[in-house]
Every structure is written in structure tokens, then in C-alpha cells.
């Protein structure tokens, strides 16, 4: 079975421009995204994520290397590879003078498909845009424009949906509706590639995550494995019924931090037993407690800062 997306030593160098030196945006990226995955692509600003996505979308030329979509080489058959994907670019882009409904209908035609009215209405309904069909895109709010771009990218039912910061400016409630839609598409077999500055969003939705930093791939794994590999530290957070006057000596090895009635103990993932025993010996008046696991954000920061 062909990989959904296969990148082999992909490089992109933007040439020198007006006295500025050339910029190596991608320094030889190699990885595969399998069919049916919900894949997260992370990296700080300027890491090369959007360059990678724009290259797959046919908006940016790569300098060298090979890239294929479901086995279709993007250089040998650009139209064929474009037909397989739907891309939500990071920057807002739309025909300002056309109505939302018209541009969505045209999108079917570009992909050689007749307008599927039922599917169009469903997508617009799910993205809360059904009542905006006769509006011009520029009249939409920021969040609506994002949702409109998602509708445009998925209307031709692509096998792979690539979303570059799709939820920027979208309010929480609609964001969660969008997650539900993306999950549903993924469950029906659509491969989804997501980049987002909301790391909790990637953590919630994606199975595997790649982290790109300064044009290089610095990590690629299952999100749980990534967290385990890069951050084995846990926090034992205890809410006390009254503030501690003196920290018990038995807790010293867990670097206790006490703020008001909250006590935080830091321990390694293989020290659960030891920390529980120490807390018990300290004879604290515990109101409740929780264990804080490392987040993708911790992993991200440890790799990119």
C-alpha cells in the first residue's frame, strides 16, 4: 500500500533577495504519513511547516528531493497529485468578488466533479456556513473565513486533507464542532495532516506527530511515545486543607514547591510507589490530588527552545 504522503530528502532554499542571504527553509526532510492517519505537524514559526505544505499543494517549488502523494509523484504528475489532496493554506485567500456558494460550487468543477448539492449543504451546515452562501467571503468574520477555507478544501472529498492552522481565530465551540467533523472524516478513511499553534488540539486529535525545527525533522513518533521519550518527569499536585507551615523532610527528595494550600512534588515516571509512600509518611491533610502528565507542549518546548 502506498504511503499517503512520502517525502524523500526534500530541500527548499529560497534564493538571496535584495541583499538578504539565501534561506534554507527545508534541509532534507524524509518521512512518510500512512493512509488513514490523523497526523500532526508541529514546529515554531519559520520552522518550514508551511513551506512543506505549500510544496505539496503546488504553490511552492522544492529545490531537490522527491515527494509523492498516494504514490503519485508531485513533479511527474502535478495535476494527478493535486486531485488527491485538499489543502487549507495558512494565509486567507479567496475570490473577494464572488459569493461563498459560487466559489464552493466552482471547486467541484475544478476537480472534474459535478456539483453534489447534498454534500455541499452538509459541509456548509457542519461548518455553520449554511446561511452565508450568498455572502461575499470578505464580508465573513475571521473565524468564518477559516471555516469557509476548510469547506473549500474538503468539498471534493479528497483522500488526504492538509490543514495549516485551520482553527486560528475560530471560537471554542465551533472549534470543537470542527474537531468532530475532522474526526468523522478520518474515521471514514480520510488521511488528515494538521498543523496548529494550539498544541492541545494536536494532542487531542492526532495519533502521530512530527516536529520540524529550523528546516529539519527533530522528532517523529506516536504522541504518547514522544511524551514518554522526551519527558519522563511527572508532577504530583496535592491540594491541602490548610497551608503547610514546614515542609516534611520525607518529601525533600521530590523538590517540593508549596504555594498557599497547593503542594507540588516532582518525580520520575518510575517513582509512583515512592512518592505515594512519602506522602503517606508525611501525614498531610489532603483535600484532593492529581498527577500532571507531560504535555505535547513540554515535548515541543524541550525540542525547539
Amino acid at each position, binding site marked *: 500500500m502506498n504511503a499517503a504522503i512520502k517525502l524523500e530528502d526534500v530541500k527548499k532554499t529560497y534564493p538571496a533577495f535584495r541583499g538578504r542571504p539565501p534561506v534554507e527553509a527545508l534541509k532534507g526532510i524524509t518521512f512518510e504519513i500512512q493512509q488513514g492517519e490523523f497526523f500532526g505537524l508541529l514546529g515554531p514559526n519559520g520552522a518550514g511547516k508551511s513551506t512543506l505544505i505549500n510544496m505539496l499543494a503546488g504553490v*511552492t517549488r522544492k529545490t531537490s528531493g522527491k515527494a509523492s502523494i498516494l504514490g503519485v509523484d508531485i513533479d511527474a504528475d502535478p*495535476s494527478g497529485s493535486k486531485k488527491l489532496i485538499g489543502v487549507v*493554506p495558512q494565509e486567507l*485567500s479567496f475570490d473577494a468578488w*464572488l459569493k461563498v456558494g459560487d466559489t464552493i460550487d466552482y471547486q467541484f468543477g*475544478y476537480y472534474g*466533479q459535478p456539483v453534489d448539492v447534498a454534500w455541499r449543504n452538509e459541509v456548509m451546515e457542519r461548518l455553520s456556513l449554511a446561511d452565508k452562501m450568498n455572502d461575499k467571503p470578505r464580508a465573513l468574520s475571521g473565524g468564518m473565513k477559516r471555516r469557509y477555507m476548510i469547506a473549500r478544501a474538503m468539498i471534493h472529498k479528497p483522500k488526504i486533507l492538509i490543514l495549516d492552522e485551520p482553527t486560528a481565530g475560530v471560537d471554542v465551540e465551533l472549534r470543537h464542532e470542527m474537531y468532530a467533523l475532522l474526526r468523522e472524516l478520518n474515521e471514514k478513511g480520510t488521511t488528515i495532516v494538521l498543523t496548529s499553534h494550539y498544541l492541545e488540539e494536536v494532542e487531542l486529535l492526532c495519533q502521530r506527530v512530527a516536529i520540524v525545527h529550523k528546516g529539519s525533522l527533530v522528532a517523529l513518533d506516536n504522541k504518547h511515545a514522544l511524551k514518554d521519550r522526551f519527558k519522563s518527569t511527572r508532577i504530583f499536585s496535592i491540594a491541602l486543607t490548610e497551608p503547610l507551615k514546614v515542609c516534611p523532610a520525607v518529601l525533600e527528595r521530590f523538590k517540593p514547591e508549596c504555594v498557599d494550600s497547593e503542594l507540588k512534588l516532582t518525580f520520575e515516571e518510575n517513582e509512583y510507589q515512592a512518592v505515594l509512600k512519602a506522602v503517606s509518611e508525611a501525614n498531610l491533610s489532603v483535600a484532593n490530588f492529581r498527577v500532571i502528565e507531560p504535555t505535547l507542549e513540554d515535548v515541543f518546548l524541550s525540542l525547539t527552545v
Partner: protein
Amino acid sequence: MNWLGVYTLYRKEVKRFTQIWTQTLIAPVISSVLYLAVFGTVIGARAAGIGDFSYLQLLIPGLVAMGLLMNAYQAPIGSLIIAKYTNEIVPLLMIPLTGFEIALSYIGAAMTRGLIVGAITLAVGAAFVPLPFAHPLLLILFSFLLTGIFSSLGVIIGITMPDFDRASMLQTFVITPLLYLGGVFYSVQSLPSVFSMASRLNPLFYLVDGIRMSILGVGDTPLALSLGVVVVCFALCFGVASWMFQTGYKLKS
């Protein structure tokens, strides 16, 4: 070949100018009517015609040619430069059409605008002055080729020029002088021989003359030569426009 895709993009581009039809279709016809009124009535009585035809009969094919090519030329320039400004160019590059297919849509839509303006100009002119329509099929062929050339040129300029100022500078300093010196308002036979010879170095002369020959049955140059120049120019301009879309010249980073 993705014909539905080509047709859809063509339809979108046609909608772009039909939505503002008073500016894109009627305004150029009004300009031509003003030329007819001013040149035809004020200096027409004193100016030379061609063969047995009056100056007004000579002028109308020139104005038709001007309407055809200027409107075909301007349509893709406006569309592409606005697309670059508004970032609309990104979705265009993402759709699964080849450079040839995108060029076909853009050039087809621009040709449509030129042909509509040319047809209205001809109809208005024919209402004022009797025209023989000597070679109607040839007129259709020349109109298609002429609008094809200038639509392709419009695409090339729309892609190459970063803004309207530079695009209009090219029109002011190159296209318009070549057009006016190409025999829109006069027959080059009426010029002194040096200028008449110089006119033959201007490719627009052959385009205007081809339209005039098709309508009046007389022109300044052999028909085969005009047709040959027009076909070669069309093939060349269309090829360059397709190549630009295919490679993303000045469009892709």
C-alpha cells in the same frame, strides 16, 4: 484533459467581467462610438478612405480591431494582478489543472470579452454605415486569432508585472502607440512611402489589416501574409502563457 475544470475556470473568469458589464463591455463600446462620431463626422469628410470605401467605412474595422484586442488584453491583466494582491493566486495554483488548461480558461474568457466588445462595436458601426462583410468566415477567424493573441499577451503581462502601474505603463508606451500606428484610423497606403514601409514592421498592422480585409474585402497587405503573421503570433503568445502557468513563473515561490 480536465474539460469540466477548464470550463469551470472559464465560467468564473467570464463572471468576473459580466458582473461589472457596464464597465467592461459597454464603456469600451461608448469609446468606439465617440471615435466614430469625432473622427467620422469631423475629419471624415476630408480624410482619405481606401479603394471605393469612405473614411468612415475604413475606420469601423479599425475600431472593431481595437475593441477586440484592447479588451482581450485588459481582462487577464486585471484578473491576475488582483489575484496576486488578494492572494487569490494561491487557490488557483492548487487546483488540479495543467498550465495549458489554466491558460485555455483565462485566454478563452478574455477572448470572450474581446469578441463581445468587437461584435457590439461592429453592430453599432454597421447601423451607421453600410459595410459589405466581404469575408464573414475570415472575419470570425481573424477575430478569434486576434483576441487569442492579445488575451495571451494579457496573461503574460498579468503574470510578469507586479502591479497595475507597470502594466498600464506598457500599454501606454507600447501597445497603444503600436495600435494607433498600425492603421486603426487610416490606411497606411495614405502615408509617405518611408512611413508606409515602417508600418509593415509593426505586427499590429497585420492584425488590423486582416480585420479590415475581412470586412471590406480590401486591405494594405496580402491576406496570406496577415494570416501567417497572426497565426505565428498566436502560437507564440499562447505557448508562452501556458509555459508560465505550467512552471509557475513569477507565481510560485
